């Protein structure tokens, strides 16, 4: 566990703005503003769908659904006080076979 945490800290990252720059270079007929709008609108659509209890299925990428978490009694780690944590749903991503396979083919940056 601890070594994978370190791994994550060292991980190079692609951010949304870098993604926008890349997509603009690949789609020269679109302005960067349009690309940014398009990226945000894809993410917004997916976020709204999840919040409304819809699932997302992208072939070759993966699917996103919600997982149910029953109510539980938690504890404030600082004060050791008991707190009721209500039931909730949390977003969950399940990578598709294609993504799983490509990520696991040893190919470091």
């Amino acid at each position, binding site marked *: 566990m601890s070594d994978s945490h370190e791994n994550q800290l060292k991980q190079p990252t692609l951010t949304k703005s870098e993604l926008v720059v890349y997509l603009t270079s690949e789609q020269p007929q679109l302005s960067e503003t349009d690309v940014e709008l*398009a990226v945000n609108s894809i993410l917004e659509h997916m976020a709204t769908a999840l*919040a409304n209890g819809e*699932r997302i299925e992208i072939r070759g990428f993966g699917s996103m659904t919600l997982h149910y978490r029953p109510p539980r009694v938690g504890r404030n780690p600082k004060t050791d006080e008991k707190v009721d944590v209500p039931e909730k749903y949390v977003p969950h991503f399940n990578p598709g076979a294609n993504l*799983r396979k490509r*990520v696991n083919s040893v190919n470091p940056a």
Partner: protein
Amino acid sequence: MIEVDKRRTKLEYAKVATSKTWMTVTKADLGNTLFDEVGLNKREAKDFVELFFEKIRSSLEHGFAVKLSGFGSFTLRNKTSRPGRNPKTGEAVVISARRVVTFRSSQKLKKNVIDNSFELTQKLGRKR
């Protein structure tokens, strides 16, 4: 009517059962959003969605985490090999070391889902 039902496969039943509770968003839906909201033509919209996910996939493949602010981040984890079992045969096997993708939703997305949890329990039930 009954005749038709008899001919349904288990898979089809499963599909019907899922579609009742879970509406599914597909690449086509995302393409339509780009057509409606951004004014891309159908062809551009389809290509854009494809390229969007392909860039995320290839970044992950090349060891990059992908952070989409306001939505969440896809990170990579290296897993060491561990003993496992073939669930069908019960046979002990070694699960090889591998790299996997995990997703962490942003605080914003998490909050939107949690804030709507009451409606969600009505809609989806309390299954894990």
